[in-house]
């Protein structure tokens, strides 16, 4: 398509002119616009409140090749902020409608929609993008993408990071008048796993309180939701999107509340408690998404220095932001060059695998690990032929399998429970076993 003369007039000020406050290696030139238009593929995960804004912001920042993935369909309650959707779109896939609206309004941008769960795409799908933007509302989804992106990382034997394997992620999140934007350069800045403690703990109620001593409307609702449903509607799976199901929960919760002289159970509160609804408004999503998209522009072009690395926005009392440079966890199981473990130098490969399986840090992450060292398979769980071939190694000394270097090295662990490779940095205990 022929470009309209002067359309990128404003953006060009940043792309075509040199500056003293730009990112490393910034070279002002017209090719930067081509890069954005044609070469830099961006993935937007989530086409909700943040996703809609991100798509618009990226398209109007010159990005011409965008993919968007979302498993949801449009609901009426999205319309107060997800501005790409109209009332007649209710029920349609978010990703598709969002992609169509953006392409309709912003000429020359190609938005490809994926109406599916993020887990349905394989690792190679994610590998094709230069930047991944996250507009998600759950820790689980973030963790999944994090593990995929960290699995791309490759380290030199000396622990040095291969910078070409970094897949930058920009993450946004909002709740009411508050939000955050962060830039994750895996291996350089902390990944989600490094800063898991940033996520607030989920509020849950003790079951005995729900069952025996309810004191609040929420206690009554959760009782019906978690306990009474299973007793009264045996075999039926509760579906929070079913109006009939929700109405039943509400009515039973009112009954229970009345019985305990508790007031305040409403339909809206019932929905809020059962679906764990997070309040959301247009302005906060707009602010956070725009900060994220601008970071993407800076990562792609270096036209200004990037954010380091986590910004919080608090709009509840006045307007406040603070940017913190978080530090990564040097022993992170996702992004570090290797999680340290210490084994005895007489340890066999089998014993080492047992150690891994019993290690709290890897709990629920490993079931049948395969082990390799510097490209050589030490033990493979599958296929059967390889398993048989590598089985004798299990009884051999790990130290000798790792080339006899007493200072140890990094083992790569694969497991079907892992989304990528787990790097384990083995060190051998001091006392040499002379027998």
């Amino acid at each position, binding site marked *: 398509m022929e470009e309209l003369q*002067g359309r990128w007039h404003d953006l060009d000020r940043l792309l075509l002119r040199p500056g003293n406050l730009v990112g490393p290696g910034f070279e002002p030139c017209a090719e930067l616009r081509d890069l954005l238009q044609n070469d830099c593929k961006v993935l937007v995960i989530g086409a909700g409140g943040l996703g809609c804004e991100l798509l618009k912001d990226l398209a109007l920042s010159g990005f011409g090749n965008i993919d968007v993935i979302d498993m949801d369909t449009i609901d009426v309650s999205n319309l107060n902020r997800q501005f790409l959707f109209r009332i007649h779109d209710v029920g349609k896939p978010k990703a598709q409608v969002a992609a169509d609206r953006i392409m309709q309004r912003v000429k020359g941008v190609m938005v490809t929609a994926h109406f599916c769960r993020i887990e349905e795409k394989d690792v190679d799908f994610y590998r094709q993008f230069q930047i991944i933007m996250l507009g998600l509302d759950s820790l689980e989804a973030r963790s999944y993408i994090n593990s995929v992106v960290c699995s791309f990382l490759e380290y030199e034997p000396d622990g040095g990071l291969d910078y070409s394997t970094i897949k930058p992620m920009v993450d946004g999140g909002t709740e009411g*008048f508050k939000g955050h934007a962060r830039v994750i350069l895996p291996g350089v800045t902390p990944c989600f796993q490094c800063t898991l403690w*940033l996520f607030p703990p989920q509020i849950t109620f003790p079951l005995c309180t729900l069952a025996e001593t309810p*004191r609040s409307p929420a206690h009554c609702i959760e009782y019906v939701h978690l306990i009474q449903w299973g007793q009264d509607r045996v075999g039926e799976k509760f579906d929070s999107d079913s109006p009939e199901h929700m109405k039943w929960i509400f009515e039973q919760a009112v009954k229970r509340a009345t019985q305990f002289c508790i007031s305040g159970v409403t339909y809206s509160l019932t929905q809020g408690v059962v679906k764990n609804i997070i309040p959301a408004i247009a302005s906060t999503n707009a602010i956070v998404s725009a900060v994220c998209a601008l970071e993407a522009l800076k990562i792609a072009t270096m036209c200004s220095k990037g954010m380091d690395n986590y910004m919080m926005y608090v709009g*509840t009392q006045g307007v406040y932001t603070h940017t913190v440079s978080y530090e990564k966890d040097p022993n992170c199981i996702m992004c570090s060059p290797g999680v340290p473990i210490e084994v005895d130098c007489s340890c066999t490969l089998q014993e080492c695998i047992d150690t891994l399986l019993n290690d709290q840090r890897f709990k629920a992450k490993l079931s049948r690990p395969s082990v390799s060292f510097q490209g050589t398979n030490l033990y493979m769980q599958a296929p059967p032929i390889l398993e048989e071939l590598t089985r004798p190694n299990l009884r051999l000394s790990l130290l000798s399998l790792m080339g006899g270097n007493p200072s140890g090295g990094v083992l790569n662990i694969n497991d079907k429970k892992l989304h990528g490779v787990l790097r384990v940095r083995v060190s051998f205990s001091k006392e040499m076993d002379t027998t």
Partner: protein
Amino acid sequence: MAQRNNKYDRQLRIWGDHGQAALEHASVCLLNCGPTGSEALKNLVLGGIGSFTIVDPSRVEAADLGNNFLVSWENLGQSKARSVCALLQELNESVGAKFVEESPEALLDSNPSFFASFTLVIATQMPEKALIKLDETCRQQRVMLLVARSYGLAGLVRICIQEHDVIESKPDNPVDDLRLHKPWPELKRFVDQFDIDAKDQLEHQHIPFAIILVKVAEEWKAAHGGRLPSGSKERAEFKAAVRARKQSDDEDNYKEALASAYKVWAPPTISSELHSVLDDSAVEIHSTSTDFWILVAALKMFMANDADGDLPLDGAIPDMHSYTDYYIRLQKVYQDRAEANVSAVEANVKSILRKIARDSLSISRSTIKQFCKNARNLRVLRYRTLADEFSPLAAFKIQRLLAVEESSNVEIYILLRAVDQFAATYNRYPGIFDRELEQDVLRLKAICINLLNDIGVNGASISEDLISEFCRFGAAEIHCVASVIGGIASQEAIKEPSYTMQLNRHHQFCSCRCIFVLIWQSLCVSIFGALYTNILFKTPEVYAHIMLEHSGCFNVNLILLFTYVLTYVHPYTALCSITGSYACVYNIEVYIKGGRDDQVSTYHGIHPIVNGNCRFLQREACPRKSCSEHLVLRFFEVYHPPTV
């Protein structure tokens, strides 16, 4: 109605039906509909304002298609106001949409009364001179004005309004007002019905912690001549007295009692902000006083005559491990007391209204109740006029900002004003033409120096890099920057939805008080709002005092404030930084040396705390001795929220 409620469900959960109703009554006037204005209005239209009118004389040009989502290619060459208006209307059919193809400046000259019919005027991308006049006009007509400006990678939002009264400030971490230290007779009688030494084990572990603490506190007072525990030794003794009543280690109500024991000796205090509202001259009621100030006057009477200086009880109690019946009855005792307090305030309101010959029923009980419930967090914000801000009167503040400010925010503020002066002088913005770029840097620098001289700031200079950067921007309106600035402007607008001529409804959230400026460069994005202006002009002593008043409540802003002072006001302590976020610091208490707690140990910087969700890293010790006088702090008694 059902569809409306569904559509707005996610925001009704924040501001409720009355907030939404106020929003639906708002009529907004947007001046200039570039991306900054269009984005601001977009967010308001989605939220469901009543109506809007766009004022913009320009046509859709090629550059608009590269930075504004609310124009389309079909509109090229047509009225921009019409295009934006039509595309905004698509977003929400229930919003009234109008446009005027005229220049805001011309309209301001020819028909200033045009603005009187709006709730709110949002002025975007307008120069200083026109804004001063607009501010004057809007103040005369009691219309709120929001100024929003995007300029390259920088921007600014400014609120102009005579007075903003906040009733529902919705604090992040509401304080429990339990009056454990001085129970009223009904609470005492209720507590007396319980035997906290009950032999029945189940009974013993289901007595709410508030009852335990009131009992132990009453016993303590009886044994100590009516005094509450003071000093670390006595407080430890008090806790031991609570602990002694435990019958086993896993009694949840006792765990809660110990975690909340401090509430006995550190009940919530009246903040300096509330004091200043109560002492405001507007509290002298006369025939033109607004409902808000009548309510404040009635509150003041209540505190002096009926409540021994205390605020009305809000009636809310936190969840406590307890039998349902005990909890519900305890809740009722608190609620009854709150209702009685509302009645007392209501009687004062009526007597004031009669005194000024107004209908004594003109302020409803529900309004009074709402007011009493939120009394602890009342705020009044008054905004300086733009004329004052641009006069030498404000020079000393700018001077101080330049002196202490580590980051470049004040310089950006100066530069945003300098580019307007540049435009007034040269009839164009700096950096518009590539060939004059270098020359413009020198011109802009000269203007900055003049500007600083004019407002009486001596010896300050603006970074050359920033001056070049502003020339590089060439007045560009970058979409993402516009979206942030427009987003903040719309968020501020929503905090003021009910500002009406009758002034009988009040606002829900605290707005930002003053200017904030932001830029994306170096390592951070910085936006400065109310906290910035509140704190920056105050000395550390005053600051410590503010902190002290807040101690005892779990206030996120407190932590933010502290980070702020450590980082900016005391550059020597800049190495201390809090690695925590709003999501996880809510369970930290902050105390200052010399405060109520006389046993504060001294830490330079921030004491490292590692617990579940919070992690503070200790960095360098403070090299400057004197700062220990005011800024020594500690985090202690990490509050563990009840766990499952």
